[in-house]
């Protein structure tokens, strides 16, 4: 095998770190992102519970967060990170900015998916006396599930990309390995190898996403 100039355990650890960060941040980010998406869809003009103020604020907050380059975002929310995980460096600490980064992004993707649900479905739900929560849970989410899964797939891949930058706060991970030990040290074999690892990750995520979305799409 090619000598990558760095111990195998380091690569293994990086892979674990990446999976850990992407996994946790995706779960939390999905919950927050979905909540925001749902609120956007509910409160928008013509939505189920139109509310200009809530919509306007949330819309703006999402835009603000999405405007800030990730590296600066990491710095901005350091106090928050510290408050939540007790430290501002390391893999666990990276999850906070990753969540803050991915949640609004997912919110936009999920919002778009939810908007594709036929109005008739919502009317059916309303005619059954469904609560707003039930409309979301039993109608909007399942009906757009195929598209939601693709959005999450997209989010997971975007998250994987962001973890590379989380190396700035000592989070490690394969992307950081590619960037620092590969790219910065101009260690091309390592860079290639780590990118291949990333490709495998992306491919796995996408295949899984496509598969699930196809299964959930019954049109």
């Amino acid at each position, binding site marked *: 095998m090619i000598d990558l100039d760095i111990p195998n355990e380091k690569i293994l650890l990086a892979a674990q770190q990446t999976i850990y960060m992407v996994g946790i941040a995706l779960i939390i980010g999905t919950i927050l992102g979905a909540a925001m998406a749902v609120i956007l869809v509910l409160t928008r003009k013509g939505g189920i519970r139109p509310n200009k103020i809530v919509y306007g604020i949330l819309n703006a907050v999402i835009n603000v967060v999405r405007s800030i380059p990730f590296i600066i975002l990491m710095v901005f929310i350091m106090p928050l990170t510290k408050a939540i995980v007790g430290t501002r460096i390391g893999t666990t600490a990276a999850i906070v900015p990753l969540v803050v980064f991915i949640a609004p992004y997912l919110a936009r993707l999920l919002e778009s998916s939810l908007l594709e649900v*036929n109005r*008739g*479905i919502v*009317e*059916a739900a*309303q*005619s*059954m*006396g*469904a*609560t707003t929560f*039930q409309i979301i849970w*039993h*109608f909007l989410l*399942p*009906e757009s*599930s*195929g598209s939601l899964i693709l959005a999450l797939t997209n989010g997971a891949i975007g998250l994987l990309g962001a973890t590379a930058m989380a190396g700035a706060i000592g989070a490690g991970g394969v992307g950081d390995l590619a960037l620092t030990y590969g790219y910065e040290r101009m260690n091309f074999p390592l860079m290639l190898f780590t990118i291949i690892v990333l490709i495998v990750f992306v491919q796995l995520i996408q295949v899984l996403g496509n598969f699930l979305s196809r299964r*959930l799409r*019954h*049109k």
Partner: protein
Amino acid sequence: MIQFVNVSKEFSSSTENVNALRGVNLTIEKGDIFGVIGFSGAGKSTLLRMVNALETPTAGQVLVQGKDLEKIPPAELRKERKKIAMVFQQFNLLDSRTVFDNVAMPLKLNHISKVQIADRVEKLLTFVELSDKWDAYPAKLSGGQKQRVGIARALATQPSILLCDEPTSALDPKTTDSILQLLQKVNRELGVTILIITHQINVIQKICNRVAVMESGRVVEQGTVLDVFSHPKESITKDFVSTVIDDHIPESIKKSIATETRNSTIMRLHFLGSNSREALISAINKKFDVETNILFASVHELQGTVLGTLVLQLVGPREEIAAAETYIQKSDVDFEEVAV
């Protein structure tokens, strides 16, 4: 009881305004099977959708059991809506759920236990003859099958009001009949008030007790089915009634009448109720020297009352025909001479 008080609905967009309803006044009593007919675009669906507040009037009020659904708080609106089931014109099934789950949905929303849901859904699916399709997704169903799922779903919760927007448009006559019988059954046995939009006048004829005729957003005629069908006043109502209680003389008969050289008169008789049975034609034949040809005949039963139409050609000497006409006049049967 559902009351429409001076209800108007205007859909406005940047380019134009559509007056879907214009000052509708209508009362649907508890226990009615109330039919609404009218041309496409007359505002029927809009009217129906106001009963569960899917549409709100731009003027006037809709009162359901005395409540203005537009004015009550959301929680109460939901409670009221649970008592009102709806069969949608476009079905509005969940593509992501199986037939079973679609029908089970309203029950699930009511927190019924799984066992009870399974039991009830199975019964409903058996009834709409879809028990073999319970785990199919809507995309794999035929048009009529989808419609039947929609009907089963609406019946799932045993509502007190059932709104049906052309519930049998995609169904064959036999399935239509069985659905109509079911509707009649829930109406009779559970006292469910049913509001039904349909283009198939035989649907109205078979199960409705009252009917409203709509034209361009207005209710132009309403009353018991018997009244409206036997004595339609508005020309649109006559048009509608004539499509089912057809009293047009078929073209081919018209042609052969034209070849008749003897003296003759053509008249249209309307029988209502038991007098359809009276041996009027027998009597004419026996009493007068005329030959009676039945050019056209139809008998319909509306709400247990028979409504019959007969187009007769009387052939014979002028005086005899006149005498026969006088006889008919006395016999309490509506009649009119018709020109061919």
